[in-house]
């Protein structure tokens, strides 16, 4: 019997260890697993590395984890959104580490981790400062930079509907990083608006098959 449903967001994030790398879905406010992030805040894990596109906004979600000094490092593409005040303050004070990754490379590095690949060459950023001291190789006459897989200990994902096997569908542009992050973590934790019966999701339309999912919690939003 497979039943990945858990009763609470606390149960969903139980066991998160200090020092973990946590992949957090969302682009802007769409697809951010706010309830799960807040459960991490309650749960208490610290010294976290957070992988996410933005650096949180206002006082909620990842911004709250930063404010409470629970984040050692953030790996993201765009930490300078309106409202990323806690990140900006800690960054200016040298109290949080930033690894800036082009957005497509961020997603692709997580995909490589999820797909069991050892890394890839991409032209993105190869002519930029972000290539840093990474290996550069000319392929097909064009400079490429070698990028490494980026796995997570835990992924926190927001989806729309799930069944007890953890099959997921998403909504509109809230899909964003969720399907990739779900493949890339040792433990994938998902919040959904609603549970549905096994067999209720169209097998042609399942976006994340349950094989990638460990725990699902219904949060109603």
């Amino acid at each position, binding site marked *: 019997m497979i039943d990945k449903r858990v009763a609470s967001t606390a149960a969903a994030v139980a066991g998160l260890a200090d020092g973990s790398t946590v992949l957090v879905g969302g*682009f*802007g*406010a*769409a*697809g951010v697993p706010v309830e799960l992030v807040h459960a991490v805040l309650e749960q208490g894990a610290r010294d976290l590395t957070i992988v996410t596109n933005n*650096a949180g906004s206002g006082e909620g979600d990842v911004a709250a984890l930063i404010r409470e000094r629970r984040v050692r490092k953030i790996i993201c*593409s*765009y*930490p*300078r*959104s309106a409202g990323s005040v806690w*990140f*900006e303050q800690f*960054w*200016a004070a040298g109290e949080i580490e*930033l690894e*800036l*990754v*082009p*957005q*497509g*490379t961020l*997603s*692709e590095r*997580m*995909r490589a981790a999820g797909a069991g690949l050892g890394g890839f060459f*991409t*032209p*993105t*950023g*190869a*002519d*930029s*400062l*972000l290539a840093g001291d990474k290996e550069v190789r000319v392929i097909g006459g064009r*400079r490429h930079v070698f990028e490494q897989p980026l796995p997570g200990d835990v992924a926190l994902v927001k989806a729309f509907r799930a069944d007890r096997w953890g099959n997921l569908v*998403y*909504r*509109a*542009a*809230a*899909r*964003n*990083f*969720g*399907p*990739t992050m779900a493949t890339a973590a040792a433990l994938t934790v998902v919040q959904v608006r609603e549970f549905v019966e096994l067999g209720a999701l169209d097998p042609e339309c399942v*976006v994340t098959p349950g094989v990638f999912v460990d725990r699902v919690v219904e949060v109603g939003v």
Partner: protein
Amino acid sequence: MTAARLSPVEVANRVARDIPDGSYVNLGIGLPTLVGDVVSAEKEIVFHSENGILGMGPAPAPGLEDPELINAGKQPVTLVPGGAFFHHTDSFTIMRGGHIDVTVLGAFQVSEDGDLANWATDDARMPPAVGGAMDLAVGAKRVLVLMTHTTVDGRPKILRRCTYPLTAARVVHRVYTDLAVLDVGPSGLVVRDVVAGLPRAELQRLTGAPLTFADDVATLSPAGP
């Protein structure tokens, strides 16, 4: 000076004229989004948004916003019939893989070789941020830049070499400014359009790289040439 600079909407109009019917287009955040507002309704253009949308439509009517249907600038948008959603990795397959016909990007600087600097300045007080700019710059079939010709204090933004950190090297095809339209050619910048009333020497003075002029330079005016 007798020449009136074009307004941003007027530059956007000029860009829109160059986008062929049937194109798949990604508009960078900021000024480039204006292009979507002015493109001819007679053309069927499919707009892509990096956060997983093809067939992005205009902003919804007030009250009909869907917080899960936003564009790359995090503003509410709509989906047109024929549109589709996909995840980020697939979205950047579209961008990096050469499937976008045209991207219109803002820029801090463009070099005569088509180098693009649009993600970072030399201001170290703000944390760096890059988003999807580098993926678009390397991946789109045609990279158009829409920007003012000079900085707010009058310095050229078109240069022999960019002084700001590069987004990507040798990627820009054409630059649309409030003063001119310039192609990045194999032997440097070629002026295609100049705003009405602007002497060529003055355009050259406001540009940090040598210009050549096409045989059939058109006149840019608010109504279009």
